[in-house]
């Protein structure tokens, strides 16, 4: 028989991974709920998932491809950009949804016990629907320009996982911070806006001046976007700076989970 001990002081900052595993069904139920609800209430349903990235793609290609005319090594700018955009959109959506997820779920948190970490985690799954739709657009564009994926494409899942972990790292941290201090819910839109330009979505990271590169790759998504392009176009191999991106992501993830664990016990009282 299961024995639970409830004490005033928490013994561990780490989440209870065994419990998290037992609640795995909740992860999928919450994700399914989000997917259903997102598209059930709109008339043209899933079409929205296409419209959003296509409009972003058009404006970015116009500004960076036609007006600024950035260097893409001969790759059509639309194709070049949608690769970055697919990774970036998944990340920023996940960051936003996970970051606001705890405040959004306060009614549940106050009435039922379940591992709270499931809430932001489930957003990583529901966000995948939009990601795969963007990926579909990407493959259409790829076929249109008669490109074949390079053999590096087998690494794409790895970079997707890094994007997922980056989004979760930020999202988990912000969700716990904003449960405590509401101010932090304003941070996410800011990150999304600045990040789109601080990430090599519509231009190449190789055009970033060498002296800024160290700073530039502190952005975890800089490495991911370059990685995506390496997988699909097979251009130049990713710069070693990418490991800085991954390192930052891991640090953020650990800090996020630890801080979340600390706020976890207070959530029902402070929300």
């Amino acid at each position, binding site marked *: 028989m299961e024995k639970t001990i409830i004490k005033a002081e928490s013994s561990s900052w780490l989440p209870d991974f065994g419990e998290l595993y037992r609640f*795995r069904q909740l992860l999928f139920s919450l994700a399914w709920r989000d997917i259903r609800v997102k598209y059930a209430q709109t008339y043209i349903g899933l079409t929205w998932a296409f419209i959003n990235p296509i409009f972003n793609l058009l404006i970015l290609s116009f500004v960076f491809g036609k007006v600024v005319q950035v260097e893409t090594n001969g790759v059509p700018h639309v194709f070049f950009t949608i690769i970055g955009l697919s990774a970036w959109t998944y990340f920023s959506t996940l960051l936003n949804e996970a970051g606001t997820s705890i405040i959004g779920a306060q009614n549940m948190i106050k009435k039922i016990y379940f591992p709270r970490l499931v809430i932001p985690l489930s957003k990583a799954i529901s966000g995948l629907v939009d990601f795969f739709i963007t990926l579909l657009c990407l493959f259409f564009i790829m076929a249109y320009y008669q490109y074949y994926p390079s053999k590096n494409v087998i690494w794409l899942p790895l970079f997707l996982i890094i994007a997922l972990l980056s989004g979760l790292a930020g999202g988990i941290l912000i969700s716990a911070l904003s449960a405590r*201090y509401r101010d932090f819910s304003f941070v996410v839109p800011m990150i999304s806006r600045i990040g789109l330009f601080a990430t090599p979505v519509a231009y190449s990271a190789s055009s970033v001046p060498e002296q800024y590169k160290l700073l530039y790759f502190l952005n975890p998504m800089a490495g991911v976007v370059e990685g995506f392009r390496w997988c699909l176009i097979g251009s130049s191999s990713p710069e070693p700076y990418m490991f800085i991106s991954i390192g930052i992501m891991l640090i953020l993830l650990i800090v996020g989970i630890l801080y979340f664990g600390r706020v976890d016990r207070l959530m029902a*009282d402070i929300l």
Partner: protein
Amino acid sequence: MSDSAINIEGVSKQYKLGNEAPSTLRQALSNIFSKRNEKKTFFALDNISLEIKKGQTIGIIGKNGAGKSTLLKVLSKITFPTKGRIEIYGRVTSLLEVGTGFHPELTGSENIYLNGSLLGMTKYEIQGKFDEIVQFSGVGNFINTAIKHYSSGMQMRLAFAVAAHLDSEILLVDEVLAVGDYEFRKKCLEKMDNLSTKSKRTVIFVSHNLTALETLCETSILLDKGKIVKKGKTRDVIKYYKNDMLDSPEEATISNHRQSHRSQEVIISDISTVDGRTQFTQDQDIIFNMELTSEMSFSNLLVEFHIYNESTDKVVEIYSWDSNTKIDINKETLTFRFDFGSMRLSSGRYYADIKVKNAIGVSALDYIQMFPLFEILNVEDNRPRVKTDRGGYLTVIPKLEKI
């Protein structure tokens, strides 16, 4: 191994009052620098120790704010104690609010999966119980319809069905049965009774409905201001609660029963029976005066009375709008006389939730909660055998003639 299901040792839960807990970064920062640390706190639970045995069904009784819900929240790990330690043997399901996590856009069956997984069930557990849950909820063919099209009763039945079919050893239930129709309440009570007697589950049950507590729970505890003041057989605890904890009509004051401080634009400033007496016999007319004081001008106010008996079953709702007199008030104090006629109630004390409103359904301008309004005496009047506590809500004295 002991046969206890839950062992609570010296548990306290302290809350800070007011806006002491900083909710923005600025407040948090300014709190560091200002040293005014005159923290106002109160104990929602104050050094509670209790052992609950396996298979026991225990009731928790107490007034609003006595700490009943906080105790259940602590036991279900929603919030954590400030002091003390709890050992729980077995899986806990808590049903603090029916239908938490239900989403109106999802179908009944999707909501079963969502709600079941919220309560910690795996997909296979839910699949295994699915038919039983649908059967119990009685929603039948609507199971594939979005639950926004359900009646509130149907949603309730579905939610209770999910929780009741969970294989947990310990079930915590809070006020769930306050809602829903009679048939459903009966079904839920039977199910809970079944869980505790047949399947040897441990059930902790919080309710204002003393009748339900008495039928369901052998033992009960009485909470007051976060402390356990009485523990024992439910019948005895309820008796103690009625006699010692509930106000008698003679000593009650309105301000003690005012539910939080409302806008104070209009308040019930006094309630008094005509000649100061609060006891009536069952065939006497119940007449009292209510004084309303207003700082603003209102026209056609609504005064609602929700009258409860000692078991806190609702007996009747009385609305001032059903009379021919309008309550208009303009920055003044007015007295209105209410005459409920002879209500032919059974003997006992009667409590009223009294609300002053602008319109039906809106929140109350003034809200007096569980105010002891009058008492019906169990007297034998000039006819020797008339009794007023035969059972049920009303006393009906038949006219009988041989024809």
